[in-house]
């Protein structure tokens, strides 16, 4: 049996009356890229924040590296790298300073790797974060994540502001980590990205994980009456959406 990076059992999170996550069961193995897809507001970010111990689960369990995501958060985070979907930074610090800070809060830094990442992602580290575009802020978070020697990468729509060339660079880095045997949890809206990177995919809608499997299996199960497979994320979503209603 393969070793698990991450596991949730009946993970449920409610905010007042609203149930954001409803009994989610996830398993991610080492050396696996797991794609997490679903419409806006489906519960992707809530799942991630619960896994990070920023939110406490209402019921159910979340384990990362076999440890409880809430009580052992700090221990877990020593081996984890995270890129949020909406990267908000401190306007008066430079990108370089933020990267160094982020890396140092996890552990040791590798100067050469930092320089290579800055060059590959074409990021000027001397600029104040205030002046960065959305894409550049994401690059700061990506450089900090890939510069750290983590065992699990949690990436929340990390490329929504990147140009196609940077998207390529990003994919290369993800595959590099996968080949090193790291686990990657990737929430994404971009079908080509999911297609190229992900070994398995989970679809979440209205807080419920409605399907997990390889992308091919997902496409098969969403085939229309003529057996035609969905050719885009839109059609995949639409099929699932109409069947879930």
């Amino acid at each position, binding site marked *: 049996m393969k070793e698990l990076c991450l596991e949730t059992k009946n993970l449920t999170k409610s905010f007042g009356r609203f149930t954001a996550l409803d009994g989610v069961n996830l398993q991610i193995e080492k050396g696996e890229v797991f794609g997490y897809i679903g419409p806006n507001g489906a519960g992707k970010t809530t799942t991630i924040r619960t896994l990070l111990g920023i939110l406490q689960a209402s019921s159910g369990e979340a384990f990362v590296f076999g440890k409880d995501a809430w009580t052992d958060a700090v221990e877990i985070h020593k081996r984890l790298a995270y890129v949020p979907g909406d990267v908000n930074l*401190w306007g008066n610090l430079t990108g370089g300073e933020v990267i160094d800070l982020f890396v140092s*809060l996890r552990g040791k830094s590798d100067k050469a790797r930092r320089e290579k990442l800055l060059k590959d992602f074409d990021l000027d580290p*001397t600029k*104040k974060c205030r002046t960065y575009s959305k894409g550049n802020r994401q690059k700061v978070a990506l450089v900090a994540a890939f510069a750290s020697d983590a065992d699990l990468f949690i990436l929340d729509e990390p490329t929504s502001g990147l140009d196609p060339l940077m998207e390529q660079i990003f994919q290369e880095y993800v595959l590099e980590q996968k080949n090193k045997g790291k686990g990657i949890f990737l929430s994404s809206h971009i079908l080509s990205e999911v297609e190229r990177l992900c070994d398995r995919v989970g679809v979440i809608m209205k807080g419920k994980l409605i399907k997990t499997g390889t992308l091919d299996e997902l496409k098969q199960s969403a085939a229309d009456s003529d057996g035609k497979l969905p050719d885009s994320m839109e059609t995949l979503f639409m099929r699932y959406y109409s069947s879930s209603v």
Partner: protein
Amino acid sequence: MNKGNFDNTGRLVRFMLRRERLIATIWIIILVLFSMVLAPGLDTMSVDDEARAQIAGIFDNPIMVSMMGPAYGDSTGALYSGMMLLWYLIAVAVMNIFLAVRHTRADEETGRAEVVRSLPVGRLAGINATMFTALIINTILALSTGLGLALTQTPTMDFAGCMLYGAVSGAAGLVFAAITLVFCQLSQSTSGAVGLSFLSLGVFYMLRAFGDIDSDFEILSWLSPLGLASRAKTFAGNSIVPLFIMLIAAAAIAALAYKLNSMRDLGQGFIPAKPGRSSAAESLLSPFGLSFRLLRKMIIIWLIIMFSLGGSYGTIIGDIGTYVSNMPQYLEIIGLPEEVVATLTDEQMTELTDEYADMIIEYFGVFITSMMTLIGLIPVMLAATRLRAEEKEGRVEHILSRAVSRKKYIVGFVSIAFVVSALMQLATAAGLYLVAATGEKNPFSFGGLLKAYISYVPAMWLIISAAILLIGFLPKISGAIWGYYGVVCFLVFIGGMPGLLPEWLTYISPMKFIPQLPLEEFSLSVMLIMTGLSIMLTVIGVIGYGKRDMTL
């Protein structure tokens, strides 16, 4: 000039008023109630001529005038203006600074202005609409203040005076809105614009302090919107000239802001952003290092502000000996029985006031100590509440998703707030002492002064610990701590007046428990109890913070 620079201003004004609906209403209700509550209270206190003369005596004292502004007469109305107007103006100015920044630089920084600019609206429509929104809100404030005061039907507060009191407050507010708009063009960041605007408020406050106490320099008061408003002599002649000066000044300053706005690109400022370090200094690389770095600039600026404020009062105090001769109330204040003072001849009195000048000066030192502490609390509260701002703006996620425990993270901000409290007091005492020491007669010993200031530190800690408690358990309403701060200010300035408020109410403020050195005995037990209490509340707050969901 481009075509249609002001297009769609009207629609933007409506949109801004919609966004202001709640905030402006709360501000106006609080301000109007604040101004209404005290008028009848003051009237009951000053029942007869003697009582009024005693209150009016406050304004013979330059220290009090430098703090509160002048009073023109000893009618209840004139005393009300003297005691209340300046505080009212400061609160109105703060409202206007935040209002102006909210709709201009803050919207630019978050990118909202860009969305609006992409619509068919004029290039200057945003700033123009902000100015009109400020005009509307200040007009409503002016009318409600005037009508509210008139409603109290306080004797000697005539209807025209009430309306003028409201009008000068609104006009001064408009001046500060316009000034803030200028700073919003100069500074590229929201925090910079707010900081510069508050700095200007402080400068205008000090300008009028010097103008108000020395008639040779009265021109300084005419240069400050805060001093100008006093010059309207509300309830004591009602002069309308200062009102017009302020309105013209507001229009002229706003025009300058429009000009500057039209000269720059969206998102840019005139104070350029320099490239910074490509890698971080060692000192930044910890949760504490980050908190310190985020607060460093603010702390340094406030240390300078407190040092200069202390210094400004040092100059005033140096001159005070010349004012105090022949004022029997001072001899009573320092403890001579009334009946003894009444029997003194003028000559004896001069002799005695000279002899006790040091003591009298010390007595006024006490007054400003509590006021300075309140001002020094502002940076301390900013440091503590930054914790919540980091959470609300989603940046806490970067830190807590790394190997940093919540306790370690929050302790950084908390410890800075605690240390900064003492630093602010030290800076004020040092400024006061150093400037007073250059005068002919320096009544202070640095040790005594420092002791007086430091004895307020536990009260500051208690207020911070209340903030931490709120952030730990009720993050969504943690902004209420500023309301509490407002109440404490109110109680320090006004609550001390005997008979105005019920006694128990004054104990809401921790400042009430602090012995006023050197008139009262230094009390180690009060300090220890208060310190212990604040540590306890802080610890509870930290525990709460560790147990709750982050609200991003």
